[in-house]
């Protein structure tokens, strides 16, 4: 009789320990699932960079004007070249200003075919972003770090 009671008690204990382990495992899974995989932050410095790029000019025409022209189907090819040159030139300086080692960037403008990025393999993970609305298009710049 005592032996049987003892065994029953041991079984109860094992079951209880199992429940506890399951609860802890569920808690851990919940913790890792809820954690955001990537962080996207709006950034004032990135906004300044984007603004500076939009105001810069080539042959008397600003990049802002070029993008607006592109949105109504006037010469998107040259606009793409101009934007790429500016972003490539500013990537190393941007890292210093933003206090981060940047992996790459992506640039897009709605209502246009402008979708520029610096190497697709590195464009993962956390990013800082800026959005500036223009007359016919919304321009977004993202830096990945």
């Amino acid at each position, binding site marked *: 009789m005592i032996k049987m009671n*003892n065994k029953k*008690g041991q079984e109860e*204990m094992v079951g209880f320990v199992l429940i506890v382990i399951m609860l802890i495992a569920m808690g851990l899974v919940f913790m890792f699932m809820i954690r955001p995989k990537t962080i996207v932050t709006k950034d004032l410095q990135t906004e300044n960079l984007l603004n500076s790029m939009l105001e810069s000019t080539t042959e008397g025409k600003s990049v802002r004007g070029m993008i607006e022209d592109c949105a109504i189907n006037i010469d998107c090819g040259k606009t793409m070249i101009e934007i790429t040159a*500016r972003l490539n030139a*500013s990537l190393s300086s941007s890292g210093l200003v933003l206090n981060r080692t940047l992996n790459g960037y992506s640039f897009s403008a709605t209502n246009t075919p402008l979708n520029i990025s610096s190497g697709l393999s590195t464009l993962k993970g956390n990013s800082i972003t800026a959005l500036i609305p223009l007359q016919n298009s919304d321009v977004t710049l993202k830096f990945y770090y």
Partner: protein
Amino acid sequence: MKMTSSACSKQQNKKKGQMKIQEMAFVLLALVLLAVIAFVFFLRFSQQKIIESAENVKAQTTISLLERVTSLPELECHGKTLCIDSDKAGFFKEQLKTNKNLELLFQGLTNVRIKPIYPSSNDIEIYNKGQGNVSYSTFIDLCKYVSSGTSFNYECSMAMLIARQ
């Protein structure tokens, strides 16, 4: 015989009590572990928030400090924010050499320079009184007033304004 039965019952009760104590210990252990998990989760969450707000504060401090420089009438572009007129900057740099009173405009700063990014060219050092310890920088427009036919327009390039304290 009676004595043996009573001893047996006592031992059984003792074992039952031990079992209950063990159960209670496990419940407490589980509760503590769950509380620890929740606390770690909360810490990670608040740490992220603190880092984000610290970065925001730093960026705002930097920009407001540099806006002070770009909004100087001696340097600013007409009708633009975060923009420096390159002609005005060149002239102002020369003036600083002769008029020491103008140095008061850069109170609290030791070095202010403009680094053109695109198209790249030589840095323009506006003010230099040492190297300083803390560096603040942001992107600005570096513009030049040029004539295009009958009218005048700004032609701008991308630049970085670097100030040291």
